[in-house]
């Protein structure tokens, strides 16, 4: 039995690995709630759910395409000029997104203001290009970008949803409460962004702590089961 076992384990690890590549960005290494990256758009454009969603999707789109291109070119980019090349690639896709959003809706473009151009300097995107896409295969880089992009969009939606509901009494522009609801205007203002982010970080850290406390017990149970066998 001994020689067969490691092979089984390795197969499992690899299979879980590619699904994990996607899921890690969504939850365990969430760019906003765990890595606390890209705070400028997180705080600034999450005053409504639709702004948050658009910003999240735009960032995810740039992340996906720049990870793809960086991963494709990773053997041709010498380390001396890698940052310059990555920024060039990212800036290109941001410009592309900027034009696309203007073509789709001027209204949304107006409400996102300068923040679309600022995706260029979102450290999440350069971080993934540098730390992941430049060292991994195209497939894995795409999965990583999809997961991180989805995680970023999810986090922005969490922020924008809470702020819009409390600060405006609406979600995606649909009124949720009766007319006599007094919105907490502070939640739409910059300070509300910090309150909401703080609350979400608190929640995420609490969940993480509880999981970590469970981990040793789970391993102990597994060991017990192993020794029983």
């Amino acid at each position: 039995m001994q020689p067969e076992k490691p092979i089984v384990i390795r197969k499992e690890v690899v299979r879980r690995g590619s699904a994990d590549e996607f899921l890690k960005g969504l939850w365990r290494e969430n760019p906003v709630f765990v890595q606390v990256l890209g705070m400028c758009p997180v705080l600034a454009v999450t005053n409504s759910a639709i702004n948050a969603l658009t910003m999240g999707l735009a960032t995810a789109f740039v992340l996906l395409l720049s990870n793809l291109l960086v991963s494709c070119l990773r053997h041709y980019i010498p380390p001396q000029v890698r940052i310059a090349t990555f920024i060039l690639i990212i800036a290109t896709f941001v410009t592309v997104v900027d034009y696309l959003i203007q073509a789709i809706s001027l209204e949304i473009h107006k409400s996102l203001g300068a923040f679309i151009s600022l995706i260029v300097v979102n450290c999440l995107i350069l971080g993934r290009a540098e730390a992941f896409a430049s060292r991994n295969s195209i497939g894995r880089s795409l999965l990583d970008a999809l997961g991180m992009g989805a995680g970023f969009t999810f986090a922005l939606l969490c922020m924008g949803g809470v702020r819009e509901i409390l600060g405006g009494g609406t979600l995606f522009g649909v009124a949720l409460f009766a007319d006599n609801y007094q919105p907490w205007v502070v939640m739409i203002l910059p300070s509300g962004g910090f309150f909401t982010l703080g609350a979400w970080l608190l929640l995420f850290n609490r969940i993480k702590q509880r999981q970590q406390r469970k981990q040793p017990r789970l391993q102990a149970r597994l060991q017990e089961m192993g020794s029983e066998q």
Partner: protein
Amino acid sequence: MKIIASDKQPAWIVYRALVGVGLVCALMIVSVFLLTLSAIEKNRSEALAQAIFTVLPGANTKLAFALTGGEHFVVADANTDASDAEAVIHAGYGAHGQLIGVAIEAQGMGYQDTIRILYGYIPDRQVIAGMQVLESKETPGLGSKIETDKSFLKNFSQLDVSLTAEGSAIKNAIVAVKPGQKTEPWEIDGITGATISSKAVAGILRASTRRWIPLVQRHLQVFHAAGEAHSDS
């Protein structure tokens, strides 16, 4: 990986990377720009046309006029240089080519950034009949009420800008007053929580009407004539 690991790079490899990536990026940007250009221009002109017809109730066709030499209005077409946006105003016409009014763009400093507005002037009654914010970055939920607050926007459905007898100046300059204290037709009721932004809108209108209304009133004949010629053709 092999290339990245080594420290000694021949110069041409570095050039190849930068020039190659630069070329690919340039190609992408230019193609997307060309592909989206028509859609973006369509969106822009639709937004402007919609704003013009909103501030000039009853109008359904429009003509752009460019101010040349500070004193003469000419119908602006594709050949006219429209680089200075404030020097182009739009006249709105009714179904039979009769002049309804003139839509004028104006801008000025708000609380956070420049506010750009469009207002409609009705020469017959010498009033402003509508105002729409084209661009503003005012605080969401507070200053942004200048775009959405219904009672504030109602101020601009009948705002008096009548001229003095000789027609060279506005009789009563537009002023913003505290919410609910409007008594004169040239006053604007401010918004609670958006005091600075609503005062800014009043200030922008005051400055713009001082410059444009006497000028438009002096050249009314040009706008009337262009409308008749346009409806005949």
